[in-house]
């Protein structure tokens, strides 16, 4: 498992990599992602229980570089950002869904999880997909048949945030740059 704070491998920028798909239904809530009974423990325990109520083999079989394709309203429920951080820990490259809970959407980018909003992603099942997000204004999901599915634009600064591995790393980078500029001034 990767630490949510030190992820260095950014594989979502390579459109040649094929990602294994974990398929989920609609309305996946933050309790399914980070179960309440595990919340008082550390991230490693939360990770072991991630999605146990809907995909019992997910926590044991998931591999870094996999993606999740889910139905609408992904991440409904509480403001706990561990619900997004736990997917980063498991090395999930991106979540692809038609819509997200608003608070979850913010939390995901803040902890370094890429979310792609694709209205037609659930029209039929997928086993492997490739991602092309070189143009943040028009990110694409490429299916196993080579078909391209358009996603909603990602604000540039949020894509940058994911590339940094989250807001904490982004701030660290920013502060050290400010320091550097001050020293040179």
């Amino acid at each position, binding site marked *: 498992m990767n630490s949510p704070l030190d992820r260095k491998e950014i594989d979502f920028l390579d459109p040649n990599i094929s990602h294994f798909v974990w398929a989920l239904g609609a309305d996946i809530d933050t309790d399914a992602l980070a179960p309440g009974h595990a919340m008082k423990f550390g991230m490693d325990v939360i990770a072991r229980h991630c999605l146990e109520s809907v995909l019992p083999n997910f926590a044991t079989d998931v591999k870094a570089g996999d993606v999740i394709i889910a139905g609408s309203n992904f991440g*409904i429920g509480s403001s706990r*950002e561990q619900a997004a951080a736990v997917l980063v820990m498991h090395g999930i490259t991106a979540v692809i869904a038609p819509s997200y*809970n*608003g608070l979850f959407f*913010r939390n995901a980018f*803040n902890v370094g999880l890429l979310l792609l909003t694709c209205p037609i992603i659930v029209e039929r099942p997928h086993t492997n997909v490739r991602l092309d997000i070189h143009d943040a204004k028009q990110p694409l999901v490429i299916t196993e048949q080579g078909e391209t599915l358009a996603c909603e634009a990602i604000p540039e*600064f949020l894509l940058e945030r994911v590339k940094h591995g989250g*807001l*904490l790393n982004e*701030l660290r980078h920013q502060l050290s740059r400010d320091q550097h500029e001050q020293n040179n001034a």
Partner: protein
Amino acid sequence: MTPYTMLDTSDNFTQAHLPQTLAQKLIAQSAKIQYASVGDIVVCDVDLAMFHDSSGPRRLKPMLESLGAKIWNKDRVVLVMDHFVPEADDDARKIVRIARDWAKEQRLPNVYDSQGICHVVVPQHGHILPGMLCVGGDSHSPTGGAFGAYMFGIGSTEMLGVMVTGKIWLKVPETIRMHWQGALTSGVCAKDMMLAMIGHFGMNGGRYQAIEFTGSTITSLGMAERMTLSNMSAELGSQVGLIAPDDTTINWLQDRLTQRATKNPKDTLVQASIEQLARVNLAHWQTDAHAPYTEHTFDATALAPMVAAPHSPANSHVVTEYDRTPIDIAYIGACTGAKLEDLVAAASILKGHRVPQHVKLMVAPASVSDMQKAKDLGVADILQNAGAEFLPSACGACAGYGHTIPGHARVISTTARNFKGRMGSTDSQIYLASPYTVAASALTGFISDPREAMR
């Protein structure tokens, strides 16, 4: 330092005359732009950042230290210890101790320790004023919208960003107006309005846009009832739940600030707030006539008491549809349902009666000050004589953190959420209702119509 891409505002000048919603005006002011176009991403200055013992210091302190960063403006930070107090065990003690030590070490000027629930204590001290942009480290932060402030909840990492930069990004939301007309009938209140709307639109009905409550029903409500509406906007799935400020808002805040100033005459922050309140332009903080919004209209005169069945606030039905559903515990608590006005409502039903032996009536007033006022008004005596057990003014069993409700209990509660396991046990059945309905049900031992009890 700004880690954000700024919006190109070159078109702004020509758009300045366009009609705007209250949400757009609040965002435009905080983003220092003339016009906030729906759908644009903008960066706003944060006027107030609130967090509590659970979401705050225990997460923020280590992150700030690892960055070697400082709080951008301590005057704009409010810390409330409410989730893990009174401390139930050593884990809770550790968490609260981190908050207390950090508050001292940082010399935070605005700290409320064990004074009640953040969403009630912070406005009761006049920290949230019309026109402000505020963030809270808790999902019920939309409560601040009752004061005409753009206030919403964020996660801990995002709060770290606010602590370091004093800024937050926003996507300018669409406005969904919930327009209520007419007077509520006796025994029906704001909680019933919310349960009706959540039942109708569902928990994602707000689509993370801005909800604005308008109409004659809303303007005739006091601040406590308005706070209940904005509070449960969280359960409607909106980012904020706004109410345009009016004289009711100004007078209420003036009272609270005057009290704070009398207690601490040398507090310059209170003086600044009093001056800021005096400058509030009520005519500006309204949605313009032809601004872009969608509207749903409701007839308050036709609203009956509502009850949400397990395990969702959206599972709400008229009280008469619950055919003598038995309950074991009646819980009057939380930021949603235990403010002074909620206690008064419950007391109006319970006065001169006593709950039967097999029913447990629990009352956890939302703030220490509400509890004191309830004592002064004789309301606490009425509740006590009815058999109420008083609990500390804290989040308590609502959050299910320390002080939980055990086992297979059937609970009727004035709180906001009845998710499975919310009050501590996955075996309990939680029904949500108004303080009137909870009190009426406590007297009979089954879900009861408060209008019957009032006859």
